[in-house]
């Protein structure tokens, strides 16, 4: 764990700081009381029992009882305070991660997977919560107890304590050797886990392929190789760790025997009392316990170090799109211009970089109120292009102008409300239809929502739902069909009353007739809004005012359907393919329910 990870996590303690400080202090005090008890026992034996003085027995007994109660009180308080601090820390940590994600741009989001982010906020935070609690308590207690016990031994008899010092040195060296070697092995174990996971994943996902080709035996043997590899590595690592135990025991037993031998000599020689010898035995036990705890802490910390690392990856991720200092607060019209825009996704490894679509010197301009279609193959840069308009990504070079101003000059919220994007991979949230629509504008009236739905050709099916606009949508819209979901997403975007409306392949699951009705409604009802429609089907765009043809990140043509058919080879090719022999036989979706 490097420093910045630790620093970042410590900052999340926030207002729970006092509890985070109080816990170790209380725990330390508890340990002091705890460690003093055997010392008092020595006094009870020597000054009370050995000389037959009952009052001294009571005196020291009462003192010990007091210490035990004090220790109980301190321990319980420390427990409660630590619970307060650790649960508060976890809540702060979840908040911090969540807030950080909200500041992310699309580029930031792309760097993480959804499940990765969810795991970080749940499992990882949970494991850090318990690690933090353990650190506050055990990590203070164990070394402190070790130190105090050794100190008490020194106080009782410095000569005999030499035994402990030697023993601890030997033990420390052995444990260091074992653990440092085992750590390397454990890293290999984790890597092998990934290999095992991959095998299972492939089989779970591709089970139909496995079965269709009757490859069950083949897969079995591949899996067994991975599982046996894991077995061998893990067994080796654990065997190494298992050496800890005998080493610790040997050292401690050695101490007991040495202590018995020299202790006897010292008692006979009169430099040590029986009571003191007794407490020395107790302290050996106490030291052994502290060591066991330390080795447990080591294992736990290595586990949570990975969690800490993952959590900090999110917290350290710098949002790469931020609001300008003096933002423009109004978008005056829906005109759009690209000036020599360059863009790439800048994936870390070469593969990804080459696989995702970039833009090279894209320039064009669109008047307010035009309807523009965009076509081109996958990876030609269609989605990338429109994502730059509402600053979901920032271009690497050149300028994107909306309403005559660079998008970077606008307040982000103003810009994104003026440029409404219906994403290709869209999501509905759990809540009523109305709740979902009101994402577009929180104070939209029912009439406005109905208006938007009528335009998006969603009003009809929503009205037919059991509770109409109050019908509950399940998480991710699983209870509506793909086409219905797309239309609700369009209606939601319309409620923003945008200057520019972008549909990124947003009607792919609707049949051609619905698609055409939506476009007609747009033409009639939203004349002043600039409409940009990305589509796979030529039929979806051929009625647009102009069509932009993208080809591998450059603009291949930008004109009307008829002109393009005349001048643009690529466009003609696409049309020919779809129109003639190799055309699409996409079938209208049935509206309700899927298969199975």
């Amino acid at each position, binding site marked *: 764990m490097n420093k910045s990870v630790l620093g970042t996590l410590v900052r999340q303690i926030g207002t729970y700081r006092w509890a985070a400080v109080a816990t170790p202090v209380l725990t330390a005090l508890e340990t002091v009381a705890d460690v003093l008890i055997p010392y008092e026992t020595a006094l009870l034996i020597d000054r009370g029992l050995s000389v037959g003085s009952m009052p001294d027995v009571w005196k020291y007994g009462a003192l010990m009882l007091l210490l035990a109660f004090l220790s109980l009180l301190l321990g319980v308080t420390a427990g409660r305070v630590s619970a307060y601090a650790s649960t508060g820390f976890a809540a702060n940590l979840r908040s911090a991660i969540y807030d950080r994600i909200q500041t992310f741009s699309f580029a930031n989001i792309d760097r993480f997977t959804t499940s990765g982010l969810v795991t970080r906020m749940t499992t990882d935070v949970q494991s850090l919560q318990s690690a933090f609690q353990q650190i506050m308590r055990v990590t203070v207690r164990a070394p402190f107890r070790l130190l105090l016990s050794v100190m008490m031994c020194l106080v009782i008899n410095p000569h005999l304590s030499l035994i402990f010092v030697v023993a601890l040195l030997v033990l420390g060296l052995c444990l260091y050797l074992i653990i440092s070697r085992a750590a390397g092995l454990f890293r290999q174990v984790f890597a092998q886990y990934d290999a095992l996971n991959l095998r299972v994943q492939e089989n779970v996902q591709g089970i139909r392929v496995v079965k269709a080709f009757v490859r069950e035996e083949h897969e079995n043997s591949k899996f067994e190789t991975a599982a046996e590899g894991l077995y061998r590595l893990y067994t080796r690592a654990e065997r190494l760790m298992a050496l800890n135990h005998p080493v610790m025991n040997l050292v401690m037993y050695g101490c007991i025997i040495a202590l018995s031998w020299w202790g006897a000599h010292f008692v006979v020689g009169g430099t040590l009392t029986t009571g003191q010898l007794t407490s020395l035995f107790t302290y050996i036990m106490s030291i052994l316990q502290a060591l066991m705890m330390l080795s447990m802490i080591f294992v736990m910390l290595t586990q949570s170090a990975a969690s800490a690392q993952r959590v900090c990856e999110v917290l350290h991720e710098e949002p790469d799109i931020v609001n300008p200092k003096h933002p423009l607060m109004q978008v005056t019209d829906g005109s759009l211009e690209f000036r020599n825009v360059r863009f790439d996704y800048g994936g870390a490894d070469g593969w990804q970089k080459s696989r995702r679509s970039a833009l090279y010197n894209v320039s064009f301009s669109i008047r307010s109120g035009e309807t523009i279609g965009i076509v081109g193959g996958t990876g030609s840069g269609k989605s990338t292009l429109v994502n730059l308009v509402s600053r979901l990504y920032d271009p690497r070079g050149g300028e994107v102008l909306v309403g005559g101003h660079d998008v970077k000059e606008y307040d982000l919220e103003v810009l994104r409300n003026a440029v409404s994007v219906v994403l290709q991979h869209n999501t509905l949230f759990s809540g009523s239809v109305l709740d979902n629509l009101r994402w577009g504008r929180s104070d939209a009236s029912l009439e406005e929502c109905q208006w938007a739905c009528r335009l998006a050709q969603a009003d009809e099916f929503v009205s037919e739902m059991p509770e109409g606009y109050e019908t509950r949508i399940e998480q991710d819209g699983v209870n509506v*069909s793909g086409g219905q979901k797309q239309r609700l997403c369009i209606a939601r975007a319309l409620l923003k009353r945008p200057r520019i409306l972008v549909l990124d392949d947003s009607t792919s699951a609707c049949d051609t007739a619905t698609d055409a009705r939506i476009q007609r409604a747009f033409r009639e009802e939203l004349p002043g809004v600039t409409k940009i429609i990305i589509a796979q089907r030529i039929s979806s765009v051929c009625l647009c005012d102009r069509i932009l043809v993208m080809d591998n990140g450059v603009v291949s043509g930008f004109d009307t359907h008829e002109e393009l058919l005349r001048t643009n080879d690529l466009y003609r090719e696409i049309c020919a393919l779809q129109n003639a022999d190799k055309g699409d036989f996409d079938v209208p979706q049935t509206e309700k329910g899927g298969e199975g």
Partner: protein
Amino acid sequence: MRQPQFGGPRDNGPRAAGFQRASKEQRRVMARLFLFVMQNYRWSILVVLACIALSSVTSLASSLFTRTLIDDYIAPLVSSAQPDYAPLAMALLRLGLVLMLGVVCGYTYNRLMINVSQGTMLQLRKHIFRRMEQLPVSYFDQHSHGELMSVYTNDVDSLRQMISSAMAQVFSSLITIVVTFTSMIVLSVPLTLVSVAIAAVMMFATTKLGKWSRGYFRTQQESLAQVNGFIEEMVTGQKVVKVFCHEKQAIADFEVINERLRASAYNANRISSIVMPVNGNLGNLGYVLIAVVGAAIALSPQQLWSVSLGTIVAFLQLNKSFTQPISHISQQINSVLNASVGAERVFRLADAEPECDEGTVLLTEPQGDVDFRHVDFGYVPEKQVLFDININTNPGQKIAFVGGTGAGKTTIINLINRFYDIQKGEILYDGIPIIHISKRSLRQSMAIVLQETHLFTGTVLDNIRYGRLEATDEECVKAAQLVGAHDFIRRLADGYQTMLHGDGGNLSQGERQLLAIARAAVANPPVLILDEATSSVDTRTEQMVQRGMDSVMQGRTTFVIAHRLSTVRNADQIIVLDHGHIAEHGTHDELLALRGQYYQLYTANQIQD
């Protein structure tokens, strides 16, 4: 009974502290796991038990030695004028040997338990994987992939702890308690009573705390589930949140439920985190009581019981040995209960019903003549999906299925190779009902290209050869050439030896599809089942993939879910499905002449000018 699952699919969530009672189901699972372990490691376990017993006894011997040391050696030595240390040296040597034995036993059982636990994990993993490979496709429809995957890691792993430490610790704790109790009784009855009283208080306190915390833990799990659900949904829709500038609202909503979780987590945790100090300090209290009571008895004028100084000292340690295992056991019971949830999931997978294969006929020279006779089918008995399907084919024909989503196209092609079994009617392959054909033989006589391509970790060549393991390199290359994948493969960094990772994530969608087609080509079966890609692939790639598909279709009976006019038009038979019924059936021209559903579909997809 199922354990409620909170905190994501696999997070068992924190559990209440203190003694917990195992449910009937949990006890059954434990017993089964125990039997599984015993079956394979009977002798190891016996040796382990013996070693644990020996090492517990030896560690007790070291506690008891303090008494001997003080009463039998130091006391006489102090009183004698000429101290003779020889007997002490002998005693220490004996002690040393006993302790050495203890160390050896301890190490032996640890080593053995590693073999037992890791070996059991290996066997369980192999066992459930073998079983998983035999499960019907429907099983995979009903279980999430994440759920299945974590059985192999999280759930199997949770058993490691349980087998290697919990089983051993519980046993050694029990032995320690018994042996310690016996020696305490022998040494002094009144002091034993003090110890037992303290132990009783400890157990009482732990149980009380456990009961007290249980309600709070339930609340915590509920708020945890709520937070996890919220996070999952919002993070999935994060891009939508951005597009709608919904960040502030999203944060405000989260703050509310996050605070609720914090409060309930605190309530639960504040109780569970005092269990340890309470137990530890009650132990201390016992220590003090023994010292005081012991001293009082020793010094009492009546001398009702004789208690020597050595006895008191030994008792101080015995008391620790007696109370510690009690708190150990309470901790271990908790971890065992947690692990039993994992064990239950492992066994549930191991118990899943494998797909049955009662067929015995082996197809020696399959021709590829597939017929459907009055086939009815539903994934679940309540909901029939296909109704009276009749299809007659001749070897080499191309059959295209068209129809809307939910019409039953995918379902039909899944029946041919018996991914699912039909309820009524029969499907014949070369005149033989497929139910009588061995599944292995049936599936080998047909290849399938799904819309969603799945590749495996390995080289490009390995992936093509997946179609027929004994295919030579040349045959694989030839197949790639046939389907038009050769060109792009050659351009890859290592050509046919390029490693593919994570389902071929480093290839484009179209390229992956071409590999899947090459894989089917290398298998070279008489029947081919194709699910054409929809229009999400761009036109050029589509063309490439289409040519690949066309070339493998040559000379094979092909069932294709068609999305392209060309495929449909060139088909020998077109089957128009509508809500599980065959609505129309014939060639392109025949169906157009009908002016029915097909005609409508066809015209609806024409470009309107």
